[in-house]
């Protein structure tokens, strides 16, 4: 341990890097947890308005995007297994698949939001003016929660593409893959948050 040459050659700490990533992800959980709490309190206050506003959301988009994210979680998890087994090509293919699924999610979200905005259902929009406050609140929470989640999907997509490049040039290797692990952890968290968004906004109202 006191050998300076040895220390200079090997000062990696993958476990420390993962602890750091987990700490960051826990702050993300508290961030979204705050939004879900806000939702729960307002839903308790305006149960009927939340129910009638929630019926206007598209089940199909919500459920389809759930399937997309669950599958992308599988592909990014398999991607780490592939690299650990030394299957670099498979790992890169799976990373590309995950990135494509992220794009699919964002396109779906764009179509879904586009349809809502077309009907004037946005904060201050003609479709919401004159509606009861509970319904306006529901759509406000819908846009802020899915919007913040969408930003996380976009950030995750960028991270996935960067890591794909790093695997390609052998900067992320079977022996040194903590960057891929941490990118995967981030992507899984995006999936976990959506697991809660689906029933709260699309299914139980």
């Amino acid at each position, binding site marked *: 341990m006191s050998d300076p040459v040895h220390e200079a050659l090997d000062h990696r700490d993958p476990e420390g890097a993962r602890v750091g990533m987990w700490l960051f992800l826990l702050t993300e959980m508290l961030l979204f947890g705050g939004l879900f709490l806000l939702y729960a309190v307002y839903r308790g206050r305006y149960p009927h308005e939340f129910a009638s506003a929630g019926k206007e959301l598209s089940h199909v988009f919500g*459920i389809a995007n*759930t399937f997309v994210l669950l599958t992308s979680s599988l592909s990014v998890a*398999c991607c780490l*297994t592939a690299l650990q087994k030394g299957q670099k090509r498979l790992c890169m293919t799976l990373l590309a698949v995950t990135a494509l699924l992220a794009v699919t999610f964002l396109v779906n979200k764009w179509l879904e939001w586009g349809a809502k905005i077309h009907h004037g259902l946005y904060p201050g929009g003609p479709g919401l003016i004159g509606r009861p406050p509970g319904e306006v609140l529901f759509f406000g929470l819908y846009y802020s929660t899915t919007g913040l989640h969408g930003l996380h999907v976009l950030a995750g997509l960028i991270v996935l593409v960067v890591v794909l490049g790093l695997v390609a040039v052998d900067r992320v290797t079977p022996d040194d893959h903590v960057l891929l692990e941490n990118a995967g952890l981030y992507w*899984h968290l995006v999936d976990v948050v959506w697991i809660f968004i689906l029933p709260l906004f699309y299914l*139980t109202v």
Partner: protein
Amino acid sequence: MHIVEYRTLIVVWLVLVGLTAVLVAASFVSPALAVLAMLFITPTKAGLVLYIFMHLKYEAPLFKIMVLVALATLVIFIGMTFLDVAFR
């Protein structure tokens, strides 16, 4: 370094998709059943992703303690907010 086999990951994915199907089916039966399904199925799904996909099962106790502390903080936060709102 722990390698999680493809088979394990695919089984977890199948369970996640199956649980989602149950959740969706419950929401078409009745609103009460939808809420009940959400309260049980959603944390189970999230737990599976954290435990297997995110390798929490294979990490040192420190990781599990960190996650528990964060979740406990969130639960206290939610519980105290509802106590506040309920008895205002």
